[in-house]
């Protein structure tokens, strides 16, 4: 899918705006909004992205659509795996609400959580993930204070998002208001005790500690779109074309 947005290449970012059907493109595609929405079309290009023009372009596109439905019926977030949810919660520095429930209770639990997660005091402050029977069986292996029960787990990811701890646990029988109250209380404690990460320091520490996140997808990018992941810098060879080398910068 990413390749379709980058002319066959595969890189670590890709962007486009799409209609609600998910198929029709509203804009071109590229590595990011500033590249695609082309502030440069209105004047000379500058090193600094003209965010106000990007916002204006997006506002104009959004005006073409009339939103429908109630926010309290919104689709709940879910991740492919608990591992990825924990990683993202760490990266975004938000708490993770992890829901473990029997399949027969999914619908009931989601009905209860939808208005909670749409609440103005809650929305945009947490990530939500539902346990998957196939991929998340050993979800609590590296989570402190976990238990092997069904319920709502409010989890604080650690610095590198590969382990964490349960801040609070509520049984599935808890009401929506009880879940909301627990989330807000945990978020207050989190805000008081968590420091905003410094990207550079985080990466430096990760290198020293040899942190690595295993992923099922292949490692690297395919910038020339030949279908093969580049395991080094692409060496441009001028009019002779381009090739792939090992790259001295690794």
């Amino acid at each position, binding site marked *: 899918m*990413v390749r379709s*947005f980058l002319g066959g290449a595969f*890189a*670590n*970012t*890709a*962007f486009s*705006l*799409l*209609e*609600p*059907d*998910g198929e029709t493109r509203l804009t071109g595609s590229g590595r*990011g909004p500033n590249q695609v929405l082309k502030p440069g079309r209105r004047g000379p290009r500058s090193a600094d992205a003209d965010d106000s023009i990007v916002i204006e372009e*997006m*506002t104009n596109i*959004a005006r073409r*659509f009339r*939103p*429908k*439905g109630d926010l309290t019926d*919104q*689709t*709940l977030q*879910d991740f492919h795996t608990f591992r*990825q949810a924990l*990683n*993202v919660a*760490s*990266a*975004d520095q*938000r708490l993770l609400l992890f829901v473990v429930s029997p399949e027969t209770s999914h619908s009931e639990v989601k009905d209860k959580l939808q208005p909670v997660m749409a609440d103005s005091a809650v929305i*945009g*402050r947490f990530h939500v993930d539902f346990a998957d029977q196939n991929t998340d069986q050993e979800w609590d292996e590296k989570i402190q204070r976990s238990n092997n029960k069904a319920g709502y787990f409010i989890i604080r990811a650690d*610095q*590198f998002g*590969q382990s964490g701890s349960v801040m609070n646990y509520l049984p599935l029988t808890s009401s929506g208001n009880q879940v909301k109250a627990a989330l807000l209380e945990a978020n207050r404690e*989190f*805000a008081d005790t*968590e420091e*905003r*990460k*410094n*990207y*550079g320091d*985080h*990466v*430096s520490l*990760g*290198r020293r500690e040899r*942190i*690595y*996140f295993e*992923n099922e*997808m292949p490692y690297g*990018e395919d910038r020339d779109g030949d279908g093969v992941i580049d395991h080094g*810098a692409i060496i441009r060879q001028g009019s002779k074309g381009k090739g792939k080398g090992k*790259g001295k*910068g*690794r």
Partner: protein
Amino acid sequence: MKIASAFIILSILLPPSLSDAQRSGGSKGGVRPTDIGAGTQPIGAESIMWYTTWDTALTEAARSNRPIFFMAAAATCSGISGVF
């Protein structure tokens, strides 16, 4: 109009990848990871509500008739987790 709520924000999470700066030896290709500082968003404050799978984003876009802001990004830097 609040832009973030006017779109369904979808970010497809990509695998670990060498950063531009690493790949080019740091001489070109953008900002070096070690030069990027801290975000300014207060911890615990409201931020963008976004979807991390295509299925959930598409379902919500169809339900609410909002366009999709599609962004694919690696949820790691140089294979290091816990950072975008």
